[in-house]
């Protein structure tokens, strides 16, 4: 119990610090602060879905951008075609992508459906699941990404009409993007609680760390994989839904998120929530401040170079650093 309490203490302290910084910044230099926090939110939202699918399940999902595309299209079409209000449209976007993720998991990633067919026909499993097979999952999801982009182009054409951006602006910065910062914090909180405070969360982490033992403990690992992948996809879909009003609705929109997502997940390190948010808090300001100072080109290069240096000098990503810091602090006391 003592360790859990002290861990919570650091967590809360960190959150309070971030919120305080936001408030002070909003008063002192509102526009710059909003931009920095927006950059952080962009990276965190781009990475949160992938953090689960790649970070926890060991599947390098090169189609992550296209999962965001599904969420964006589902939201946009439900709002423009079915007249659903925007917030509801966003939930539709997340749910549709979660369902889509479920299908992808059952048919491709876990190979459940092909193996079921195999059992019926040839009497043996046809394929091995892609969990923890990084290179193979990369090729499979690259193929899936090609299919999804071109499929979206064939079905929906080269573009679909985009939904308008709600709310006005304060201090010359769109309110909607400021709201996004708040929503990102909410998403992180929900995911954190889901994976640490619920028994589903413990089941997931048990299954991911050692499937055999989890099975031995009576955990239905098949269902856990399915649900975890669906949640990861749903989060990616929700990211697409949130950015639907901001981006040009074209089949290739997913490519803008891919790099930030992968960099954030790997730089973040093992834990989904702490890693992703910390790498967002590190890379976001670098991108925003360099863009502010030297222009967008410098911002882009600074982000990429910072990622390379972080990967090189922080073995185990930022979570590794946090663990070491915490050990030292506890050890010291």
């Amino acid at each position, binding site marked *: 119990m003592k360790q859990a309490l002290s861990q919570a203490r650091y967590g809360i302290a960190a959150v309070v610090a971030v919120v305080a910084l936001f408030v002070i910044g909003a008063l002192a230099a509102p526009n710059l602060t909003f931009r920095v926090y927006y950059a952080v939110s962009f990276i965190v939202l781009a990475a949160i879905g992938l953090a689960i699918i790649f970070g926890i399940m060991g599947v390098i999902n090169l189609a992550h951008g296209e999962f965001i595309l599904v969420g964006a299209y589902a939201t946009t079409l439900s709002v423009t075609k079915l007249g659903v209000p925007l917030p509801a449209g966003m939930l539709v976007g997340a749910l549709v992508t979660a369902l889509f993720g479920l299908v992808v998991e059952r048919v491709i990633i876990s190979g459940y459906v092909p193996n079921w067919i195999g059992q019926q026909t040839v009497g043996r499993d046809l394929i091995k699941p892609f969990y923890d097979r990084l290179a193979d999952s990369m090729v499979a999801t690259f193929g899936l990404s090609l299919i999804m982009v071109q499929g979206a182009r064939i079905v929906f054409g080269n573009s679909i009409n985009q939904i308008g951006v709600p709310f006005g602006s304060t201090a010359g910065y769109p309110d909607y993007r400021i709201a996004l910062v708040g929503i990102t914090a909410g998403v992180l909180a929900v995911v954190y609680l889901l994976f640490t405070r619920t028994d589903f969360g413990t089941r997931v982490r048990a299954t991911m760390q050692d499937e055999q033992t989890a099975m031995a403990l009576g955990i239905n690992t098949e269902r856990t994989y399915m649900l975890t992948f669906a949640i990861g996809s749903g989060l990616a879909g929700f990211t697409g839904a949130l950015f639907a009003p901001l981006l040009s609705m074209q089949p290739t929109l997913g490519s803008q998120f891919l790099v930030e997502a992968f960099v954030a997940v790997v730089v973040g390190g093992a834990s989904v929530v702490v890693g992703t948010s910390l790498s967002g808090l590190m890379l976001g300001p670098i991108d925003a401040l360099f863009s502010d100072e030297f222009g967008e080109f410098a911002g882009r290069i600074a982000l990429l170079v910072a990622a390379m240096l972080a990967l090189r000098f922080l073995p185990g990503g930022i979570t590794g650093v946090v663990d070491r810091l915490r050990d030292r602090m506890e*050890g010291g006391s």
Partner: protein
Amino acid sequence: MSESSDPASLGPNVRQTAAEMATGDRTETLLQTEDLVKTFGGFTATDSVDFAIEEGELRCLIGPNGAGKSTLLKLITGTLTPTDGAVYYNGHDITDLAPNKRVDRGISMKFQVPSVYGDLTVRENARLPIQQFADGAERRQLVRESIDAAGLSGYEQVEASTLSHGQQQQLEISMAASLEPDLLLLDEPVAGLSVDERAKIAERVTRLNEDEGIAFIVIEHDTDFVGEIADKVTVLDEGDVFREGSIEEIESDPAVKRIYLGEDDGGDE
């Protein structure tokens, strides 16, 4: 010992030239650690350990789990660098020497988890350590010896991953021994093996120690196995040397039983 002929061989010359050996002061001690400390954040794995091995000695290392046995071994092989203290080998300070350089000096190791190259055949496994210092007919000879010593003749073309647990342990010991080291470290070589497989390994280790003069540090819980092979036994507890002596002294000492059974006897001051 001819340097292997193909130019791109990256394996260093394993055996040191005689001259280099001579300069070190000629003491009987092969390996010595001085106040060796290793901490992981708040946890102290080894607490200023002083420990020495004579040439040709067969030392066993026992102690409850978490006593720092594996950590001590990793500090000797260089996989871990100590927080404080030093490691001397043949009189030279090797504290910060890279692992593969320590193998040049004659230290070799068998890992806790049997790690042979699963996808490669037994012959390919056996050849790997030998290829860096032997060539042609000599290499074929040493490889054959290494395989026979592991009791795997006839299995040359078999994929290592399909061997039994015991066979893999034997193969890995052969590979480590084929470097003709002065000091061979074994991390729980008989864990999970059947009785007759343990006997084979015990006989193998004693033969290497007596016939080829290889010194050993063996981590093992099985006290019968330890009794059979050990010249001397060191007991580690909470990161420090708790007792050292012959197997009989150690087995008869009540304090050792107590630390194994978990009662905290408040140290032996």
